[in-house]
């Protein structure tokens, strides 16, 4: 009886959540509908059915004039590069900060916290990249992203590593693991749910950022996807249909990544591992 009532409650909750999700889905409709409208109609920003469907034409223009594939490659290289560097560096860093309790470690924590608060200084960073000959390279902006986002990832990691019991470290040490193997084989796998979360957040931050690529990449050929919308702000004429189409295409890859990656957040994995 109670089990039945519980299931019934879940179904009600499920329906409620789907209804609530309309708040999220309706704005998407605006994007999707606008992206298949004509330029003139799109400029009026109305959530209305398009008077003529221009799906194929509009998206063909996105690929041609919007350089979608070029932008996609750039985005992929930059995002993947930064995500890997940021996650590796901050996972190691956070493990140390969470476990070692000395004044130096606490100072490090504060130092990195400062990075979450302080904004990037564009002019001095520009000169720095210039002197390293990293201006106008993708490696350059990867490093800039790393500098900004390592604190962010660290902050997320530290809180969670502290929930991993220290006995895990001890057990591994007793088993004869050195610190590096302990981290790679025991700790890092335990951090899977939060690594996935952090990875998604870092990925999104980099994928969607339009300011840093804009400032530190001169050539339009290195432009990442979000910047492509700027190609359609014309001379007193803005093609909102292409802009929204570009938004759609820019968002899709991250959305798919999230869908696929969710599988790695297998529930109860952490507690299971601890028990085992």
């Amino acid at each position, binding site marked *: 009886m109670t089990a039945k009532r519980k299931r019934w409650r879940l179904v009600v909750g499920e329906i409620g959540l789907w209804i609530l999700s309309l708040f999220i889905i309706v704005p998407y409709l605006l994007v999707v509908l606008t992206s298949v409208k004509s330029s003139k109609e799109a400029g*009026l920003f109305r959530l209305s059915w398009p008077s003529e469907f221009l799906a194929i034409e509009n998206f063909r223009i996105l690929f041609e004039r919007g350089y979608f594939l070029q932008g996609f490659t750039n985005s992929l290289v930059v995002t993947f590069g930064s995500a890997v560097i940021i996650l590796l560096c901050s996972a190691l860093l956070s493990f140390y900060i969470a476990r070692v309790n000395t004044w130096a470690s606490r100072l490090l924590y504060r130092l990195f916290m400062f990075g979450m608060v302080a904004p990037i200084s564009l002019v001095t960073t520009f000169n720095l990249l210039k002197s390293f000959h990293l201006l106008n390279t993708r*490696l350059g902006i990867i490093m800039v992203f790393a500098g900004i986002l390592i604190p962010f990832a660290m902050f997320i990691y530290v809180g969670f590593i502290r929930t991993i019991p220290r006995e895990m470290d001890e057990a591994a040490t007793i088993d004869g693991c050195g610190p590096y193997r302990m981290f790679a084989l025991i700790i890092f796998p335990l951090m899977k749910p939060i690594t996935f979360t952090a990875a998604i957040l870092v990925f999104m931050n980099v994928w969607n950022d339009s*300011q840093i690529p*804009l400032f530190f990449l001169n050539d*339009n*050929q290195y432009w990442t996807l979000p910047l492509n919308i700027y190609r359609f702000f014309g*001379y007193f004429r803005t093609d909102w249909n292409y802009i929204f189409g570009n938004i759609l295409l820019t968002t899709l890859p991250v959305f798919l990544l999230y869908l696929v990656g969710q599988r790695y957040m297998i529930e109860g994995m952490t507690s299971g591992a601890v028990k085992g």
Partner: protein
Amino acid sequence: MKVKTNYMKAITNLALIALLTVACSGHTGKSSESGGPEGSGSAGTKKTEIKFMVTNENYSGRLKDFIANYESSTGNQVEVQLLPSAEFDNMLKIKMMSDEGPDLFVTDDIAMSQFNVPKEWFADLSGRSWVQRLSDGGRKIIEWNDGKITGLPITNPGGMGILYNKAIFKKLELEVPQTWDEFLAASEKIKQSGITPVNIQLANGSEFGTTHMMHQLFANAELNRGDAGNQFWEDMNRHLIKLTDVPEYEQALNQMIELKDKGYINEDFISNTFEMTQEKFGTGAVAMHPAGDFILEPLTANYPDLDIGFFSMPFEDTPGTISLYAGVGISVNEKGKNKEAALDLIDFFASKEQQEIYMKKAPGTSVFADVNAEANVISGELQKYMDGGKAFMGMFGKYEAWNDMDARKIMQEMMLGAKTPKQVLEELNAKAEIIAKGKKLQGW
């Protein structure tokens, strides 16, 4: 456990691959991958490559065509760096200060650029041979206050006044109003017929549409001073006269508020955008709209049958005056790596032949005396104002501490009723002081 080690391996492998890809591709710089939108990279004989920084908004079809002409006739390459206008000022400044500036760049308005951008960035073009060919009016529009020529317009220069729908005026038997009272009477008649008399647009990002009305009315201050006009600006720029001291400015703002209070302005002004304005003006839902001739190109494309006229909004008992703008300018970086080639490009652009091709694609006013520019529907009227001495450069080209963005924001507040004209001028003055002090201007 097995699953986990595989997962780890996969991550490490991916990490390595990614790092390698990044490291290898990051350094390639310009040598590979041409596929850029402007096809920058070119194989074969290496000609001069001129870097040109321009806002997307101003990279028009005719400018694109001109660059193609230039490339094919000289063999030089122009590498176009397109940037969104919201970030353009910032990026240009940062690049210039790090000596990474482009050879050619655009500025929002040639007259405005003398205040908004450090003067030493501009190569002086006053000595180029084409300067002799500028018309008197044209020269007046594009020269700086110190008489220097530093750029050529890539959008047509023009005037800000009131555009009106001639068909509506004819139907209601209205004449072009010569005084403020006549203007109000005409507006009343239009309102009675169910048409919105004056359309303004103040949605965020489209506020420029109302600032035009302000500039146009403010220009009466210079008109009223007659020969003392230059002295007036000198005093203004040394802060001997404050914005709050000029009676015409307050009167101008009072007129704008009067329009709103009498219900002659569209009610949705705060959400009205440039696109919506075109729709309303084009379909005859509104009779008048303060603007310059830049609105004509998109407007006539969508509404080719529209019959448009142009007049200056009256000021008190006078017909008032037009305010001028110089248009977006293309200038040469004084410290550019290819300065000579950039100067040559400007010379090429200034040639009679190229200017005529250029003006043909978007009719309007040319700054050259010998260029046969096709007139647009308002350039004839504009010329009359200029010939009659009733056209003055807008505040942005005269007042060194002016920031047009601040003015636009304050227009929103004023029209929403949050600020009185007095408060508006006080706040504009306070903002001007910040800019003047930051720039270390004399007398502030």
